[in-house]
């Protein structure tokens, strides 16, 4: 296989998903496509040649030369404030990829599927449910998505539409810090009880993908194993700020 070469993409759209998260739609020349769950490396270059590289999950389903990244702005970050604050339509962005061959799902891998996301960690899971819908897949899928508040939920309206499509996808939210008046859903961090209520029984042998901050991923993966799920069918990806939780 040849080297993953750096490509100069063009920003075709910038969408503000919430106060901290921006979706960048990119047109990537000669893009070979990607699998849902894969990521790209992004490289920024200053005028004096200084460079900074980071990895971002692809949030869009495979779609020709179009790639969408959901970027959460981290106040002490170096790359995310630029991507989520400075980049505009028509700007160029250097990237290479796709990267990663384990945290990926396609319809022919089957299910049932349990997707567990925290915060902007929902991005690669979004690529999976979007691809599932685009291909007409009926694989039974449950998405459990933890956010701080309703305003923090990314892709909220699109997830409502996908959930309402009646094709075997259900979306369950938990809001850990603030809930709107009349909220009847979960209002705490994901725990074993919630995983039992929302997820599949271990005997149904679901494929599980967990993505979010380290603390969420460690806790959820440990609870799933304790509930009796096969560790080999639980795939994890850490997402968000680096550093200890």
């Amino acid at each position, binding site marked *: *296989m040849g080297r993953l070469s750096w490509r100069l993409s063009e920003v075709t759209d910038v969408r503000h998903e919430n106060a901290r998260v921006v979706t960048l739609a990119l047109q990537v020349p000669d893009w070979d496509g990607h699998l849902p769950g894969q990521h790209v490396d992004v490289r*920024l270059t200053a005028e004096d040649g*200084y460079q900074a590289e980071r990895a971002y999950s692809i949030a869009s389903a495979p779609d020709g030369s179009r790639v969408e990244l959901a970027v959460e702005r981290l106040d002490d970050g170096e790359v995310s404030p630029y991507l989520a604050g400075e980049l505009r339509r028509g*700007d160029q962005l250097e990237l290479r990829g796709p990267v990663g061959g384990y945290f990926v799902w396609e319809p022919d891998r089957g299910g049932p599927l349990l997707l567990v996301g925290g915060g902007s960690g929902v991005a690669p899971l979004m690529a999976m449910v979007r691809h599932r819908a685009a291909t007409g897949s009926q694989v039974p899928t449950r998405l459990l998505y933890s956010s701080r508040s309703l305003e923090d939920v990314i892709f909220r309206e699109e997830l409502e539409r996908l959930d309402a499509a009646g094709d075997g996808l259900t979306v369950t939210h938990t809001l850990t810090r603030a809930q709107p008046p009349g909220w009847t859903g979960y209002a705490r961090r994901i725990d074993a009880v919630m995983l039992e209520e929302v997820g599949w029984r271990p005997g149904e042998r679901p494929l599980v993908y967990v993505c979010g901050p380290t603390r969420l991923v460690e806790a959820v993966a440990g609870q799933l194993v304790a509930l009796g799920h096969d560790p080999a069918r*639980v*795939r994890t990806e850490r997402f968000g700020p680096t550093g200890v939780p």
Partner: protein
Amino acid sequence: MGGFISRGFRGRRRAGAEQAARLPPGQYAESGFPVLTAGPTPRVDLADWRLKVEGLVRNPQEWTWEEAHALPGSSFEGDIHCVTRWSKLGTSFAGVSVDTLLDAAEPLPEASHMVAFCYGGYTTNLPLEDVRGGKAWVVWEHEGKPLPAEHGGPARLLVPHLYFWKSAKWVAGLRLLDHDAPGFWESLGYHNRGDPWREERYWGD
């Protein structure tokens, strides 16, 4: 792609000269210790923990936790580099040198490579020249404390001159071979050797 400038990007994490000299290309200094794993963290009871050296050796070895700690100790102080771009400068680990483990097992002359295998099923491959001569350890302490499970405890391999996915967490043993055999990430798009100074991140780099 030479000459491209990211409009409006100035960079906020420029390292000082001394730090910059220690950072391989594309890396930045990270003060924390990020956790990256492909699956759930295995929990290994110390009473059940074993460390093996097997394959092309004259005397296959298997140590218990107490027996491994009775081997001559060895420590590392220096820098580690993760393929996800963070480097941790000036950290330390303690355990036992891989030289000590291999010497006890007496590798056969035809042994040229090894696969580290782990609790949880992870594997990674290394040529013996990358783990011989004081370049690799099996460690159970990080900065003076027991290695936490999410960082590979009870014990992990430590090969600090290569990207950190080679430093396999939850190591259970070393299998010596007369050929190379790509491990988990090496079969999924990541570079077979992973030298950070040559920026060997992915296949073809």
